[in-house]
């Protein structure tokens, strides 16, 4: 709706003081969009694609060529500038699509899954560019299935489930409930069915939860004393094969807020669409 590609069902839109409710085109010069799929022209070279995108915003030839060269350098695509977009690798296509979205230097930028499907080095580079743009004052709307990416890059986050915002707040505020929490995950030799209730009775200051068929999570607001817990389990002929500290993250907040289990969320990450966060 903000980009003008969908109609409003209700309410109104103002972008930088411009009322776009009736005329979505009114503020399009202020907006840059990087879609989830690369949608540049396969027949044009990387350089020509960028120049064409700049021309759509009325930028003069000398200026658009200068900006195209700078962006090709920034994204590490200078060597491929004259190659056709059709023969770019997926990572190169994503990077050029990103460059095309910012060539007119928009103060507002919409990024849809900017790091999905690209190699680790390219993803790191893209994240760094996002951080740089943000530090220079660009307002960025980032849609991603990677919660850790949102936690790292965003100041404000909205959890969206089935197209509706279920919670929105500053990242620091969202993390507040899990901050200071101590979580230990035990991997054990046997099944843990029914064990958590016994442990809860024996150690009432801790919160126990079975997180997989042979894993137990132990939560506390104080540091967890592991020794008595291990001995308790060994007395019941259950070997603790591993104990590791889990640092609570935004993913835990997401699970808490939405009620979507971590396992399901991981599956959701694989298929684009229904669950997002900004």
């Amino acid at each position: 709706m903000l980009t003008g590609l969908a109609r409003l069902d209700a309410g109104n839109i103002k972008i930088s003081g411009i009322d776009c409710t009736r005329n979505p085109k009114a503020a399009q010069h202020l907006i840059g969009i990087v879609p989830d799929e690369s949608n540049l022209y396969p027949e044009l070279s990387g350089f020509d694609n960028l120049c064409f995108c700049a021309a759509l915003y009325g930028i003069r030839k000398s200026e658009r060529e200068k900006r195209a060269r700078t962006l090709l350098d920034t994204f590490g695509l200078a060597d491929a500038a004259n190659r056709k977009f059709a023969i770019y690798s997926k990572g190169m296509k994503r990077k050029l699509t990103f460059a095309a979205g910012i060539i007119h230097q928009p103060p507002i930028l919409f990024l849809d899954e900017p790091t999905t499907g690209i190699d680790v080095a390219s993803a790191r580079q893209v994240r760094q560019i996002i951080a740089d743009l943000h530090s220079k004052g660009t307002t960025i709307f980032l849609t991603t299935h990677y919660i850790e990416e949102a936690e790292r890059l965003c100041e404000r986050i909205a959890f969206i489930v089935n197209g509706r915002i279920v919670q929105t707040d500053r990242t620091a505020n969202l993390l507040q409930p899990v901050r200071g929490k101590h979580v230990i995950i035990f991997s054990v030799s046997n099944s843990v069915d029914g064990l958590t209730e016994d442990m809860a009775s024996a150690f009432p200051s801790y919160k126990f939860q079975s997180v997989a068929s042979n894993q137990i999570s132990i939560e506390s607001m104080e540091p967890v004393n592991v020794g008595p817990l291990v001995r308790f389990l060994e007395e019941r002929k259950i070997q603790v094969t591993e104990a590791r500290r889990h640092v609570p993250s935004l993913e835990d907040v997401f699970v808490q807020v939405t009620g979507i289990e971590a396992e399901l969320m991981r599956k959701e990450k694989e298929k684009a669409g229904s669950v997002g966060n900004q």
Partner: protein
Amino acid sequence: MKRWIAFSNIFIKDMRTYYLKPPNISWGIIFPLAWTGMFFIRSGSGLESVLELLPGVVTIAILFGTTSLLSVTITFERRSRSFERLLLAPISLDLLMLAKTSGAILFGIINAFVPIAIAAFLADLSGIAWSLVVPAIILISIVSTFLGLFISVSVSEVFEAQTFSNFFRFPMIFLCGLFFPILSLPVFVRPLSYILPVTYGVDILHGAVNGEHIMSFTLDFLILCAFCIVLFVLSLLNIKRKWIA
């Protein structure tokens, strides 16, 4: 100025990417040549029939050139989502669609002059009223392009665009007076001829080349202009209704 930069770059990009590609240039030459040859042989007469065939061949070259390329390019750009990029640019939808269609219009005009150039070697063209031929060619190119636009915004797949185009184009060859006079058609078919825009362009061309036309030139031009406006407005409405969710 900014809008002109956007307009001209869309036009130049389309010319480079689609219209000036060798296969399309050869299509623009071979296709009118084939039709000229076919009707010339079929007529069984000498070189004097070249002028009789010329309006039909010119129209067919424009019609097939514009509708084929425009309907395919727009559908292709929609499928690859690159058309979305244009819709997100800060230019009005009508200017954007004029930019997208201007390449096809120019391609149609260039196509029209291929059979004329061939005819110049075979017949005496000195009697042709060029002051009528040139605007008629421009208007036939515009109306055919807007017909292609109307088709391309009504479908979602490239093959659908081609099928839908043929649904209009082939009947037009026989119903619009390209090679067979409208008055020789059965009476119950004639109303169909008058609801097809090409009829009016061909009537001007026949009048300008052979001095035979069934309506006044003014009426022909007015009706062609009306068809251009109606097809363009309908296409814009379709885009707003279908492509903006």
